[in-house]
């Protein structure tokens, strides 16, 4: 992967676009208080590769696993870690949505437990 001088600016801009993977990464890093370097290490890649991955579209829907594998294969990153980060953030988004909705406390507790299990797995 080349490292052009516009790459970082592109990744930063992508972090503000909800459809881009970069926006999920930015949120995750923020919640986990991770530096770019630490996060790149977690995905098993360099910071430059992380920037390129940030410019991908966020995998969603039925093709989620297929898309995660495509990204991992193309950039040589850890598919398992990427999938875990994305699932974790999906669960967090769902939890936030339910916190703002009139969900029963029991149902919220189930969601919380699911999120914890996901994190610890």
């Amino acid at each position, binding site marked *: 992967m080349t490292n052009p001088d516009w790459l970082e600016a592109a990744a930063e801009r992508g972090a503000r676009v909800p459809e881009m993977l970069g926006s999920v990464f930015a949120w995750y890093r923020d919640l986990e208080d991770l530096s770019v370097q630490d996060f790149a290490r977690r995905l098993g890649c360099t910071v430059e590769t992380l920037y390129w991955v940030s410019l991908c579209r966020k995998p969603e829907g039925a093709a989620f696993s297929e*898309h995660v594998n495509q990204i991992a294969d193309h950039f040589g990153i850890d598919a398992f870690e990427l999938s875990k980060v994305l699932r974790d953030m999906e669960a967090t988004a769902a939890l936030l949505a339910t916190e703002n909705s009139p969900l029963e406390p029991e149902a919220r507790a189930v969601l919380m437990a699911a999120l914890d299990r996901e994190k610890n797995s």
Partner: protein
Amino acid sequence: MSYPSREEEWALHDQVLKRMPVAYSKVFALFMPFLLKTLESEMRCDPEEVRDAALKAIFDYLGRPETYDRDQSLLRSFLTLAARRNVLDSLRSTERRVIREKNFADVIELRARPPNEEMEAAVETALALKRLERRNMPQEDLGVLRLVLQGESSTLELARPLGKEGLPEPERKRVVKQNRDRLLKQLRRLGKEEDTHDES
């Protein structure tokens, strides 16, 4: 730098339309170098401005890939056109900001004289008025001149010492102009006389 072929562009566009994640990153890799090179050679502007314009063009396209019609043009032409428009928009907005700031600075400059100039002007005005008073100038004329020397330009204000503020506006304007011109002529004459006295 090698340009993508028409077939490569079409294949990539199809992948973007299918929302395939890696295709998005490939669009940047494939078109950013081309856009930067083209814009930098065509438009005389800041490299950062060019970079932002090119990035905006690509992000806009990825946000709404359906806006590109492959029967109309090559994808690189479509993106170049969008990026060029972004550069022009940015230049125009910078130009507007500069004009706005200049206008604002001009107004500030006109309204707020530096304190030393303000004091000098006040002293000069007071001296000039004393000289005029010594010449037994009518009070109405002195009133107008005092206001003119203080920088007053409103015809209503200038009409007050003349007792003409009640006139209809067009008439008031005409009377004020007439009196102001007459008084300024007198002032010039007075100035010349004073110079001659000083010299003699």
